[in-house]
């Protein structure tokens, strides 16, 4: 399908959720209320690590206004020795994460929950719960958790035959790494650290749950997957999925974090016990303290190359924080760090390290940014050492059709090269830059690239023609990044009708077929496929209806511009029948018109991005500001360009925060010390320049509209790009994030 022919695909139609969001009408999780509703609050651990000896809830239960008190004993127990997987999540860990069982594993770990007639009474009751702890020594940072003699979090974890906090190891291998390095003319090896960072969504986790006398459960909550909410709640409470209906609320940001549950199973058990609807809303402190950020990391990357710049070997060792239970995003750095390049010999090893902090959750391109930070920084040093332009060095080694990646894929038509060339030829890359524009001020420019897998997976859609001849499309994916707007464009295009006649809705678990998470840069890719197939089925029905009316062969009916018309030998024989006319005749001609598609979609192609950034450093204060940022990415096809640009700009802003100012800080007692947006420093608007997205549209041949996926790749390059730019400005390399003012000053003076 060529962009030129499109009326709606690729146009900036008005977003369907816009008016509600700017007028405050949008119904987020915490906005729901029900008659007879009560409130639940959670008692959280005051220790980062302790065995639970006993929990006495008698006093709390006796407080007037309290309706129920529960502990982990009220949830389904998942024995430690038997994995129960839902996607990538193991219910052994998920259940222990939402309510501690044998021990508490971080400061803020839920221990019990109380439902009462008000939040205040529930809080007061929590304070009456008596928990006897056996306090244990704790380890927060990776180096402490893997040091000899470190406090062991889980007796069941064994690494190399001994008790350990390394929960698992992942290895990607290609060729012969030793032979590769032996053949290299130059080898650069560096070690890096990054800090855990928050996804930065503003909407806190919240839910309202109603369990009625007949055992039926309804859940209102925002998430990145209502089917995930249903499945996890079912597993953790033992209630069959058919008895649970999860209704997705409008979501106020997720970025990966809302691909797991914290509250819903607890609220369900409390509602079942009390017979009352139960509402829970986390406060910001709880969100920071007890939900998952993404991992901090310690990594070492070693790259060997020939004098001409050919990379012959690359080795990466990545220690990734899992938080208190196994399951860090090891696959991100292990698989993505070297994937943009054709390298014959690769050894990439990742370790999943548990420690006494909240269990990590997904964050756009989970783990890939911290791997790319290390790899792309070393490539920058390599380019400098070889006196080759850093983009030329990347071009020389770029993955191409047929390149085998260490993670297993053999690439098809990859478009990494095009993103590098887009930056190379962009005016930004050749714009003059004064490295010392004023006393005490230095400027520099840096580049970096990034890779993300992208994904297909299960999606469902239903496209119905309303009785008045308009269109509703229902999909099963919460819209975090503009999928409703994109899908409306696709449906209007395929049906040939005005965009305003299409409404796109997100179905609950009872009204649409199973659809996997909104995540992995998959939703626009996957839902466009199922919507396209549904639209094609509907068009077939419409042609059949017209054929029946005209008494000609359906093959002789064509569909265009929202009308059926006789074609071929019958061309011009009858006046066209519009969608409205066919809808009006639906009942007499065979019934309601509509079609659905439920599919495991395939054909997702990886995403590549290359970024260039200019920074300015105040060398007396150590403050780094981003002056200019240009981000090139191949998205296949931008169904709705504003949203694609927003994805790229948003990813870059998150990368700027990760690189310069964001980090979780713990005190000596193992408590999070900056659990607020004041001291957890995400960039504000005035901290970032207008980010220029360069959207490349090289259609994915395996997708009906050519979509590749756009949401995650933009967060992969910024960390290294900014670090490389700071080097260009100061002549000093940084090996740890964030590059915050005190750290910058220390490096400048040291």
């Amino acid at each position, binding site marked *: 399908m060529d962009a030129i022919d499109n009326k709606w695909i690729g146009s900036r139609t008005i977003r369907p959720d816009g008016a509600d969001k700017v007028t405050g009408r949008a119904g987020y999780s915490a906005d729901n209320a029900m008659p007879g509703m009560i409130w639940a609050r959670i008692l959280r651990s005051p220790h980062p690590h302790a065995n639970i000896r006993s929990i006495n809830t008698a006093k709390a239960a006796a407080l007037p206004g309290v309706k129920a008190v529960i502990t982990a004993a009220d949830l389904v127990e998942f024995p430690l020795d038997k994995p129960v997987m839902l996607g990538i999540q193991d219910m052994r860990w998920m259940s222990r994460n939402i309510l501690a069982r044998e021990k508490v594993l971080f400061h803020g770990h839920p221990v019990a929950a109380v439902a009462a007639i*008000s939040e*205040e*009474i529930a809080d*007061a009751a929590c304070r009456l719960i008596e928990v006897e702890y056996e306090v244990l020594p704790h380890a927060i940072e990776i180096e402490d958790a893997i040091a000899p003699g470190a406090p062991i979090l889980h007796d069941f974890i064994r690494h190399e035959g001994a008790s350990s906090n390394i929960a698992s190891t992942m290895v990607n291998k290609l060729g012969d790494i030793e032979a590769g390095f032996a053949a290299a003319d130059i080898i650069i090896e560096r070690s890096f650290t990054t800090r855990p960072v928050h996804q930065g969504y503003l909407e806190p986790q919240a839910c309202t749950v109603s369990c009625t006398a007949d055992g039926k459960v309804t859940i209102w909550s925002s998430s990145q997957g209502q089917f995930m909410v249903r499945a996890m709640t079912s597993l953790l409470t033992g209630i069959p999925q058919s008895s649970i209906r999860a209704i997705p609320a409008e979501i106020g940001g997720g970025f990966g974090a809302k691909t797991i549950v914290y509250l819903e199973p607890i609220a369900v058990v409390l509602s079942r016990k009390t017979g009352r609807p139960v509402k829970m809303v986390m406060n910001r402190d709880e969100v920071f303290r007890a939900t998952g950020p993404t991992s901090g990391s310690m990594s070492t990357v070693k790259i060997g190359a020939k004098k001409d710049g050919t990379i012959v070997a690359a080795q990466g060792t990545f220690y990734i924080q899992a938080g208190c239970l196994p399951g860090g995003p090891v696959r991100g750095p292990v698989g993505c760090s070297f994937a943009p390049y054709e390298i014959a010999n690769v050894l990439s090893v990742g370790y999943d390290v548990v420690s006494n902090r909240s269990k990590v959750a997904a964050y756009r391109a989970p783990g890939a940014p911290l791997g790319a930070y290390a790899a792309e920084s070393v490539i920058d040093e390599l380019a400098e050492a070889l006196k080759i332009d850093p983009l030329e060095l990347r071009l020389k080694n770029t993955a191409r059709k047929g390149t085998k990646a260490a993670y297993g894929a053999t690439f098809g038509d990859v478009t990494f090269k095009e993103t590098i060339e887009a930056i190379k030829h962009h005016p930004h890359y050749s714009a003059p830059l004064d490295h010392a524009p004023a006393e005490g001020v230095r400027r520099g420019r840096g580049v970096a690239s990034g890779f993300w897998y992208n994904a297909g997976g299960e999606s469902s859609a239903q496209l119905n023609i309303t009785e008045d001849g308009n269109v509703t499309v229902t999909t099963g994916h919460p819209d975090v990044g503009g999928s409703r707007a994109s899908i409306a464009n696709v449906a209007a295009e395929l049906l040939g009708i005005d965009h305003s006649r299409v409404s796109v809705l997100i179905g609950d678990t009872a009204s649409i077929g199973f659809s996997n998470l909104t995540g992995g840069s998959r939703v626009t890719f996957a839902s466009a496929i199922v919507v396209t197939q549904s639209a094609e089925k509907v068009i077939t029905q419409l042609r059949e209806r017209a054929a029946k009316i005209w008494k000609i062969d359906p093959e002789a009916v064509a569909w265009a511009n929202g009308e059926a018309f006789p074609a071929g030998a019958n061309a011009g024989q009858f006046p066209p029948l519009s969608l409205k006319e066919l809808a009006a005749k639906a009942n007499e001609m065979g019934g309601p018109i509509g079609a659905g598609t439920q599919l495991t979609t395939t054909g997702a192609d990886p995403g590549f991005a290359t970024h260039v950034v200019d920074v300015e450093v105040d060398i*007396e*204060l*150590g*403050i780094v*500001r981003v002056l200019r940022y240009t981000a090139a990415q191949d998205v296949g096809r931008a169904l709705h360009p504003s949203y694609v640009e927003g994805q790229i700009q948003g990813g870059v802003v998150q990368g700027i925060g990760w690189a310069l*100012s964001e980090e979780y*800080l713990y005190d000596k007692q193992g408590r999070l*010390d*900056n659990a607020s947006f*004041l*001291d957890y*420093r995400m*960039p*504000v*608007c*005035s*901290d970032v320049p207008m980010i220029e997205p360069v959207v490349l549209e090289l259609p994915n041949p395996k997708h009906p509209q050519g979509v590749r996926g756009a949401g995650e790749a933009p967060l992969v390059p910024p960390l290294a790009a900014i670090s490389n730019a700071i080097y260009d400005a100061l002549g000093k390399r940084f090996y740890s994030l964030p590059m*915050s*003012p*005190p750290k910058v*000053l*220390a490096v400048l003076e040291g």
Partner: protein
Amino acid sequence: MTDIRFLTPHTLDEAIGAFAAAQGSARILAGGTDLLVQMRNGVVRPGAIIDIKGIAELTGITEAADGGFFVGAAVSGAALAEHRHFGKAWPGVLEAINLIGSTQVQGRASAGGNLCNGSPAGDSVPAMVAAGAIVIIQGPNGRRQLPVEAFPAGPGRTNLTPGEIVVGFTLPPRPAGSGDAYLRMIPRTEMDIAVVGVGVSLTLANGVVTAARVGLGAVAPTVLLVADAGAALIGSTLDAASVEAAAAACRAACKPIDDKRGTIVYRTKVAGVLLRRTVAIAAERAGGK
């Protein structure tokens, strides 16, 4: 669960009467941009709230015949910015107050609240100290006054005695050739808390400094008047050596803590850097170099 009484007195006497009668369970509300946040966090749980914004004296700005100013304790940053003369006389004080929060916060936040909140990082306080502002206080035992630098007693604590309310600030008349400025170091560009804040007020005659005061914030338990820094500048032509001596005095005055917001080493170094930069702006405003 807890009932809170909300009082809106229209006279200072009424307010003081109610405040004293509450015996410590009441809180004064000016803009509420600190108080409401602290109540939400459960840090304070007042039994009564006394809103002072209905009291004319506390929300007024008056300019005396000699050019001195009185600024009511509850005047918002936005209201002060709209005053026709204040920002011309005291651009540094105004920029410090206007740095607080965002546009929304500016519609509420007051210099009185900033001072009474007792944070060593309050942005308006170093500028007020540099300006030589005097705090007017009234309580059950009548009216008294204190230099701004003598008002804070420690983080979150002030030298107000029970039942006392801040009425406002007086700022002295400005001689010709005067200028002031305030700069803070924050990692972000907005919506952040000062890691270091420096206020400077200067008077120059024929290129020579005849008066200088320096206020330093966020580097000690309270905002400081750095007398040695002022002394190093007075009599100088703001030559590099004198300014460096003033910067050294600021560094020496620092008694910071190592915390999530900044290290001791960093804060100390930055105090000197900001002093130099703030002096340059104040001097330019004074019409000097």
